[in-house]
């Protein structure tokens, strides 16, 4: 297990290095130089020269890359061109909205999907199963930002239970903040929960077709006992992959949902960075999100091996 974790840790580092090279290159291939791209066509030559100097664009590509990386490793993400403050400050202020939102949504999604998928599998073909499958079909089909708009229409505009958007700040009280993240989290979570519940159900049903489950049934276990003792653990492998995948869906989804609800999170920061051509912000935030997703994938891989001993023996 330790060896497995170690090799995964090495590939995690390699992935991060590769990701940083890709992001750095994408910003580098912008036609012309980043300074004139950021300042627009009407910029004065001396302004461009000053920005080039500030961005460290006068060095070679290699030295610029290493400056960027070593800066990030020490928490120095550079200075935002438009906000004139360190990018790390901008990120720190916003990550406390985006991260709780994604975790909140993942929690809602998993809490709904597990029991629902399990109930559907245990009642295969019965009315309960058909109802659940019908509902999840609909859930998978609903775009989360449309669902968010409908939630706002019902719960904010008509019922006035929640605010239509904005975030009070964690210093205004935990409950108030959680309340303002609730509609966004539900909007993010429901489509994901539907997908997860369906995967959960089909994964359990797949394992129920296996010989060892038939043997267990033949030995006198009921269907529920067979699911509980034998099928569930084996069915968890694809389910875990999907949960790992969902994290990146949620991070991406959060970018849009933050815009629906005017939440000042990383998603809005990226969009502001794009419209204001603040590449320093875009580059850093994208790298941070990629770092988060790669790390989650790593954790899923390790969990995989813990759940399925066959996978780590193969190494």
């Amino acid at each position, binding site marked *: 297990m330790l060896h497995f974790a170690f090799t995964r840790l090495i590939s995690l580092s390699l992935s991060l290095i590769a990701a940083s090279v890709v992001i750095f290159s994408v910003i580098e291939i912008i036609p012309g130089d980043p300074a004139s791209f950021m300042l627009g066509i009407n910029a004065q030559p001396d302004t461009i020269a000053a920005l080039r100097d500030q961005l460290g664009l006068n060095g070679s590509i290699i030295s610029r890359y290493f400056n960027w990386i070593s800066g990030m490793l020490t928490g120095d993400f550079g200075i935002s061109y438009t906000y004139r403050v360190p990018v790390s400050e901008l990120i720190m202020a916003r990550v406390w909205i985006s991260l709780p939102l994604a975790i909140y949504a993942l929690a809602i999604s998993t809490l709904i999907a597990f029991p629902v998928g399990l109930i559907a599998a245990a009642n295969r073909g019965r009315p309960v199963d058909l109802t659940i499958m019908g509902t999840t079909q*609909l859930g998978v*089909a609903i*775009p989360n930002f*449309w669902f968010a*708009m409908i939630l706002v*229409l019902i719960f904010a*505009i008509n019922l006035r239970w929640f605010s239509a958007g904005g975030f009070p700040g964690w210093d205004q009280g935990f409950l108030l903040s959680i309340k303002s993240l609730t509609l966004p989290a539900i909007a993010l979570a429901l489509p994901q929960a539907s997908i997860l519940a369906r995967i959960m159900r089909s994964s359990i049903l797949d394992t129920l077709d296996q010989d060892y489950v038939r043997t267990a049934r033949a030995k006198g276990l009921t269907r529920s006992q067979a699911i509980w003792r034998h099928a569930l653990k084996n069915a968890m492998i694809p389910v875990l992959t999907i949960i790992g995948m969902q994290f990146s869906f949620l991070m*991406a989804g959060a*970018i849009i949902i933050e815009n629906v609800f005017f939440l000042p999170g990383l998603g809005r920061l990226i969009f502001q960075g794009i419209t204001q051509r603040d590449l320093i912000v875009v580059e850093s935030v994208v790298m941070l999100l990629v770092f988060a997703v790669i790390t989650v*994938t790593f954790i899923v891989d390790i969990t995989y091996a813990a759940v399925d001993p066959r996978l780590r023996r193969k190494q």
Partner: protein
Amino acid sequence: MKLPRTLIFGGILFATFLFAALASFFWTPENVEVLKITSRFKLPSVINWFGTDHFGRDIFSMIMVGARTSIAVAVVAVGIGIIIGVPLGLWAASRHGHWLDDLIMRGNDLVFAFPSLIIAILITAVFGPSAFNAIIAIGIFNVPVFARISRGGALSIWNLDYILSARVAGKGTFRISAEHILPNIANLLIVQGTIQFSLGILAEAALSYVGLGVQPPTPSWGRMLADSQTMISFAPHLALFPGFAIILTVLGLNLMGDGLRDILDPRIRRAQK
């Protein structure tokens, strides 16, 4: 053989939108490029079945034209994912434990690590927003999904005895992957394919919604939703109809996928006999 009801129902739903998309090339009730400010915010009526928007354009006509965009973008994006992703996944599974497997899967993790919207944002930041860039962004993201699913499915089959027999019988890795592994993971791929197709439609809508996909004046469902957002309190029909169009298309595709799986999976077919 009796067709599953899900396939019939889903097929009808999807065919309706496909027909609307094709028909829109020749005919729409009203021209979507003509603005009629005098008749804006009309509620659904006999003349304008789904009402009119803030520029007085017929929403029914716009949904017909929007169907084109959605379906075209999703088809190409899923195609990219399958054509590149499935062979990669199968190859990785046949080399399990080998450094090639690791290289492919880490490469996939890398693409995976960029959620499609972030790829789109990066691409847009560099090349500007367009439908073509949206297709690339969604397509790239489909590659690791199919690679992962086919590798995962293939890995469990590689451990089975009959693969060993095929090996003993002298079949090479490529033939085993094509003749034994692929048919056995086909149902996984179809289920994933329909999910990705619907996600493609949803992703296109999302990208257009934030202004990174299809550009105005070309109507797109996501764009229509974005326009309707500030008017939802007094003209909810502007948001409802494009939303329903997305949901019904995606629902139709998913039901079709389920029905196809019922037909294609030999285990299910045997059980029904």
